[in-house]
């Protein structure tokens, strides 16, 4: 663990010494803010409309969670599909192409220290990016303080879901970085796989029976939505943890295999 933290600190040093972390934060918040702004606009439209038709029943059903944060988390997750490969592509491919990996191999480090340390470093950047977006529920809380306000428990569960999704994309993206010494290829493969966990959900709509269940379990969308609704179920947690462990394990194997080639 001590070694992993040393590696994680080194990765952070590089993320923050280069523009990578700042570009990630800027893009994430910029695009996230656009989505938030348009969702708030939509919320406003609906509430005006319901007021005009004088429908207290509809008005009651309108809440921040379903109208703003649920869709917002979906949108943030889509941004992660694009941005996480930017973080993971360099993790191992760069060490290979610049030959710094020899330093790691000749130091008293186990491959798992290297893999886990790199994962932790990148996860810290993703965590920071997500923390920045806490301004959105913060703004809603400020404006709506005389109503019921934000359901923080549900919002935080949504954050947990998207954080787990980010961690899964990181672990899988790092695997591709371990397979090649080209950062471009690592980024592209990481992006395609992340996208796949998303579009496979659309395929579920066409399938039937058991196939449908399997396909929709494999898609990230349903699991993320469960968190967004504020339900915490074991099957959703297991889904993300499986992807994370699978990614880390595959990366570990790829790093070991690289030394034997």
């Amino acid at each position, binding site marked *: 663990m001590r070694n992993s933290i040393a590696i994680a600190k080194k990765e952070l040093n590089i993320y923050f010494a280069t523009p990578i972390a700042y570009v990630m934060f800027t893009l994430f918040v910029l695009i996230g803010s656009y989505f938030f702004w348009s969702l708030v606009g939509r919320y406003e439209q609906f509430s005006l409309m319901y007021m005009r038709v004088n429908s207290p029943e509809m008005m009651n059903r309108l809440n921040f969670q379903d109208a703003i944060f649920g869709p917002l988390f979906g949108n943030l997750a889509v941004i992660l599909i694009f941005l996480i490969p930017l973080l993971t592509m360099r993790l191992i491919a760069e060490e290979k192409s610049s030959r710094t990996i020899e330093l790691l*191999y000749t130091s008293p480090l186990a491959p798992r220290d290297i893999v886990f340390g790199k994962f932790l470093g990148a996860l810290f950047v993703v965590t920071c990016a997500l923390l920045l977006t806490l301004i959105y529920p913060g703004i809603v809380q400020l404006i709506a303080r005389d109503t019921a306000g934000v359901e923080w428990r549900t919002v935080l569960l949504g954050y947990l879901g998207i954080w787990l999704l980010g961690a899964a994309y990181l672990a899988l993206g790092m695997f591709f970085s371990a397979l090649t010494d080209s950062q471009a290829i690592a980024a592209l493969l990481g992006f395609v796989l992340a996208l796949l966990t998303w579009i496979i959900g659309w395929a579920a709509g066409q399938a039937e029976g058991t196939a449908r269940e399997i396909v929709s379990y494999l898609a990230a969308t349903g699991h993320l939505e469960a968190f967004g609704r504020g339900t915490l179920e074991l099957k959703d947690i297991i889904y993300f943890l499986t992807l994370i462990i699978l990614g880390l394990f595959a990366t570990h194997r790829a790093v070991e295999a690289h*030394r034997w080639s």
Partner: protein
Amino acid sequence: MIEVSRLVKSYRDLKAVNDVTFKVEKGEILGFLGPNGAGKTTTMRIITGVLPPTSGTAKVAGFDVFESPMEVKRRIGYLPETPPVYTDMTVRAYLRFVAEIKGVPRKQRESEVDRVALRTNSDKFVQRVIGNLSKGQRQRVGLAQALLGDPEVLILDEPTVGLDPAQIIEVRELIKSLAGKHTIVLSTHILPEVVATCQRVVMLAQGKVVADDTLAGLQKAHAGAATADGGMGPAPSLEEIFLKLTSV
């Protein structure tokens, strides 16, 4: 201190290292010579645990590189052909990181970083980003990195490449001053370097050991024809011996 025995590394049909055996005693500086592609770097990579051998063993301080890699890695400082530096980090941040993964205790890290920076004359540019350094400066940072934690064994793959003549002399002096306390394997193409620093020479050609002797021993063995009065012939230069042994 280092025992390499019947080492073989093959890539498909190509034997990069073919049955290499040699020993390095404690405190000795061994000159590791050979033309490009002779298998020097591959052998060094096996000793440092970067590559596994196809067969044969390598031992450092009595530990087998393959069976107890951690024990070996704790005792080795390695400067590969390309200095393994992160171009986006400052020299100080980089050396701190290496000290940390080499297991230098937290309290000693700063002073250890200062020590190796001073030792390699890198102390003037420790605050600079490595990407902005000259080739010679990077080489010195690479050397500083290998010295961190004061390892018993130093494996240096062409440490003077890219340095200017004054720096080459500095590095040679540095290496000489490390002898005795450290065991050093120094790979190089520059023959005067060997004459200036090494006590013993192992020469490789096409993956095989073609010479393993002291400098004086080599000269004696390859001396020209005896003169008429029964004395020794003219002592050949290392260059002549090198060309003779490595040409095929």
